């Protein structure tokens, strides 16, 4: 490494000795080149905090796939212990643990499924070899414990395998509400209903109608007929259900069965290995956020938002197919008729935040419609006094020509990165809202917030780019006068450099956004389907 660069960076890291610091100080004072080099590194540091790498997904690659032809030497090996533990979890799931009632399958399928879900000799031998090899590659003390765990697990799996291969009677354990066991099901809590939004629970035989805060038990079935509900499992997995949806809890607190409908799961590290079983697939999380949907045709649609998920199809005979890993922004359809197919990732497909803003009584035009304290939502930054405001600007505007917008459903707006031209059709009647995010009075410090705002009508489009806002038709523009409008150098639109993002949820009534504001606020116009009488017709 360049000695001057090395000195500058060691100084910034606080790694210079007293003597070296004195020498370095003298160098900076006397050498303009040294001062410039240090200045550049300091300016870079300022920007490192601003730049969000576009491809960082939170998953650290085992191998360095750097495209930068630089002399960055190989970094020490990725934590192999983690690999081993993850593999253990995967094997646990893929092997014998099928804790659900399989009463929904024909008898032939039940038997077949149970047999298939036991490990074969070759699977055990292969897995054991892989685990031991992985564990012994790692040199840390943690790995020794992992090796011991691997050996123990391998022995257990061998015993299970021996028993199952030597006995024609299926031995896989099944649990569930209809299990004919004499033993009463354990009454321990496996999850809690933590929130709901306009939820209507189906009253039917065998299903519960829970209330918020209610503890949920193994074998309990829930059927959500309308709205949204959030369930938090005993291990901290947040599962958002979107109606219509039916789930069933199992004995395993880290698993559930999705009978129909869709859910979105955010899995914390302590719950890695969280499993979802659908009629046509097994899904195992390896530290991630993902959405699962079971359609009327029983096909499973899996979408991975972050991290890694493994999934295997279950065919008509109940035979479990190959396990495949899926990563961020991947989506797959697992269909008993057509097999496993990669499909387009749809970022707005799953509802995953039910912290929403209810519609307030409709104000007069130009009045504030809603004001929210950012601190009630997720926020980072130094000050907690910020707010997002929503103003109703126009009502019943009929568009007499196709109107360009920056975003319509579906999609996530990422300027300069795949932004697609979008528009709202002529003839649509819209109400126009202005979203104004200025959490700290634009004091120059980054303020960030995540919000979900639910409008009563369908969202037809969002204008959120500074240029688009400036060029928006007069009939859509703000009627409200806002302070300090001219302080934004590049306009009040969203700033992708600060990581602003916005998307319209699939039901088109909710707008989700992640906003950051520093020396300039963020604004956007939201065009919502209007039920008002038209107030004006656009001038050509």
């Amino acid at each position, binding site marked *: *490494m*360049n000695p001057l*660069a*090395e000195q500058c*960076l060691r*100084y*910034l*890291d606080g790694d210079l000795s007293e003597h070296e*610091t004195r020498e370095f*100080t003298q160098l900076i*004072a*006397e050498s*303009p080149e040294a*001062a*410039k*080099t*240090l*200045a*550049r590194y*300091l*300016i*870079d540091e*300022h*920007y*490192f*905090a*601003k*730049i*969000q*790498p576009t491809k*960082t*997904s*939170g998953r650290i*690659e085992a191998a*360095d*796939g*750097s*495209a*930068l032809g*630089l002399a*960055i*030497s190989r*970094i*020490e090996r990725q*934590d192999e212990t983690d690999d081993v533990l993850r593999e253990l979890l995967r094997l646990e799931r893929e092997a014998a643990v099928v804790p659900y009632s399989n009463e929904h399958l024909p008898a032939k399928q039940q038997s077949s499924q149970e047999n298939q879900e036991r490990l074969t000799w070759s699977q055990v031998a292969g897995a054991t070899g892989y685990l031991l090899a992985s564990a012994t590659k790692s040199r*840390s003390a943690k790995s020794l414990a992992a090796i011991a765990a691997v050996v123990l697990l391998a022995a257990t799996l061998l015993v299970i395998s021996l028993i199952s291969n030597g006995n024609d009677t299926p031995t896989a354990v099944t649990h569930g509400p209809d299990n004919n066991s004499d033993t009463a099901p354990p009454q321990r809590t496996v999850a809690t209903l933590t929130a709901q939004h306009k939820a209507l629970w189906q009253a039917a035989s065998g299903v519960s109608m829970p209330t918020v805060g209610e503890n949920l038990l193994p074998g309990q079935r829930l059927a959500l007929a309308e709205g949204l509900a959030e369930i938090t499992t005993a291990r901290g997995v947040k599962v958002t259900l979107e109606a219509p949806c039916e789930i069933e809890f199992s004995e395993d607190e880290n698993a559930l069965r999705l009978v129909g409908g869709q859910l979105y799961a955010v899995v914390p590290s302590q719950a890695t290995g969280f499993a979802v079983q659908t009629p046509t697939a097994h899904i195992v999380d390896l530290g991630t956020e993902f959405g699962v949907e079971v359609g009327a045709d029983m096909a499973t649609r899996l979408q991975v938002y972050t991290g890694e998920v493994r999934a295997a199809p279950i065919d008509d005979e109940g035979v479990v197919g190959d396990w495949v890993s899926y990563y961020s922004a991947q989506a797959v359809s697992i269909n008993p008729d057509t097999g496993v197919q990669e499909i387009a990732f749809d970022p707005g497909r799953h509802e995953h935040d039910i912290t929403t803003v209810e519609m307030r009584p409709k104000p007069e035009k130009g009045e504030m419609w809603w004001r929210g304290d950012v601190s009630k939502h997720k926020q980072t930054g*130094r000050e907690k006094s910020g707010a997002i405001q929503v103003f109703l600007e126009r009502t019943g505007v009929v568009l007499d020509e196709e109107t360009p917008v920056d975003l319509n459903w579906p999609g996530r707006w990422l300027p300069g990165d795949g932004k697609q031209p979008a528009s709202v059709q002529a003839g649509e009647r819209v109400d126009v809202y202005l979203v104004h995010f200025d959490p700290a009075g*634009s*004091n*120059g410090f980054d303020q960030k917030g995540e919000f979900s705002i639910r409008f009563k009508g369908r969202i037809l489009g969002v204008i959120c780019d500074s240029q688009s806002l400036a060029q928006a038709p007069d009939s859509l523009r703000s009627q409200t*006068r*806002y*302070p*300090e*409008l*001219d*302080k934004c*150098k590049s306009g009040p639109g969203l700033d992708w450099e600060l990581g602003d993002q916005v998307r319209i949820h699939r039901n088109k009534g909710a707008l989700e956004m992640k906003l950051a504001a*520093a*020396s300039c606020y963020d604004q956007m116009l939201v065009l919502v389907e209007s039920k008002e009488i038209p107030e004006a017709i656009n001038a050509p």
Partner: protein
Amino acid sequence: MPPDCDPSSDKMSQLALLWGQAKPAVSAYVRSTVRNHHDAEDVIQSTVSQIAQRFDDYDPSRPFVAWALGFARYKVMEYRNKSYRKPLLLGDDALEALSGAIEEESRGVDERYHALEHCIDRLGDRHQVVLTQRYRHDKTREQIADQLDVKVNTVSVMLRRIRQALAECVGERLGGAAR
């Protein structure tokens, strides 16, 4: 959208615009001496507050960055006098030289920002994560080392190499020697 009628709003808009341009330089200068992230943020905030109070005195014919760095110098000195945490790092002569260098380098910060952004995107995922953890999430080298289960020194070396590589990449993109 119509501008506000408040007569002071023009002045404030001008300040906001100028501060947006000067912030990287002020931040760089403050961080040259105040290495604790939160302390640095406090000093920067205190600097901008002082700038806002004295903005009426600003002569638009002078470079704003240099004017703003004057306040930063004062605030850094104030911090050093109050701080019990660390002995003085750079001496006054060095800080003076650095201030001049930062002012000069800040003239091309927009280009540097975009070049840096491009170069960071070309890093491998692993390096991006380490960089992000350190500077965006303000994790210590010890925390990153713990996360990766490697030695702290490995993280230090990794970060230095990443930064040196980025500096070279930026230099190439900006068409100069390794910057």
